[in-house]
């Protein structure tokens, strides 16, 4: 059964709801300016090497690649299951756990470790980029964040 979009809550992929503030490369909030476009997700602060968790109950469908010409960076796409049916989550800048693709993961379950963005963008606040789409339309994850303490597996 699919729940109402307004009542479906997501966990931060970092375990903390702290959103990236302003640095010389931009701001982490949804729809923040990025040159001619707008930021399509929310960036959550994380240290390189820290654990990354699944924001939803779902199936890890594939590895995602943020950059066409820089394959050092990776991400994951998770399709929702149960009350998350219809939602698709895309996360960037993490090293996925081995053999995570194809697995069903619980909300808050470990899925990888954070990468170091400073090797490409010196001075940037290290973060995990988190996008959600519902039936193809992008939504602001920060509007539907679960409390941190309720996200531990």
């Amino acid at each position, binding site marked *: 059964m699919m729940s109402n979009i307004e009542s479906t809550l997501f966990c931060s992929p970092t375990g903390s709801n702290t959103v990236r503030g302003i640095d010389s490369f931009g701001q982490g909030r949804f729809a923040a300016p990025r040159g001619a476009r707008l930021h399509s997700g929310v960036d959550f602060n994380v240290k390189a090497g820290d654990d990354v968790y699944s924001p939803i109950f779902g199936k890890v469908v594939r590895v995602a690649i*943020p950059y*066409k010409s820089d394959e050092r960076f990776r991400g994951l796409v998770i399709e929702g299951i149960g009350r998350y049916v219809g939602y698709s989550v895309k996360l960037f800048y993490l090293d996925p756990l081995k053999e995570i693709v194809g697995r069903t993961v619980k909300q808050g379950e470990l899925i990888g470790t954070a990468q170091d963005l400073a090797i490409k963008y010196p001075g940037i606040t290290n973060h995990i980029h988190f996008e959600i789409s519902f039936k193809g339309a992008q939504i602001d994850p920060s509007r539907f964040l679960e409390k941190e303490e309720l996200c531990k597996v």
Partner: protein
Amino acid sequence: MQSLKIFLALIFIQISVACSKSNDSSLVQLHLQSKTECELVFKAENFSVIENFCSTEGKPILIRVDNQEIRSDWIDERTSRFLFQEGCASSDECFYELSTNEAGVRGRFSYRINMTEGEYSFEVGASGQPKVLSESSKDSAS
């Protein structure tokens, strides 16, 4: 004599303008319309570009202009495959702009896929031989 010179000059100018006019049709923008298991489909009225990622028989790109068809090799396979795997932020952000002439098709492809944006211009001859004329690509921080 002076008026004859002016008259001849005007005729010369008219002929020059007529000759310099390109046979190119006007530019048509084809947006990403659908994606199937094997294909990306870009469409506009009377125009379509279909990129096939599964079939190993024949050329992977089919360009339809009115009733004419050109089958082409990959123009920029890496970008096409990246788009096929990762998708576009929106269909407006991945599009072809095409014009046709007697020699084939000219155009450009513009894209934003995840944190990469870029474009390339190209021409495809009537025989289906593509040539990239210019290319630019930029990675942006999230």
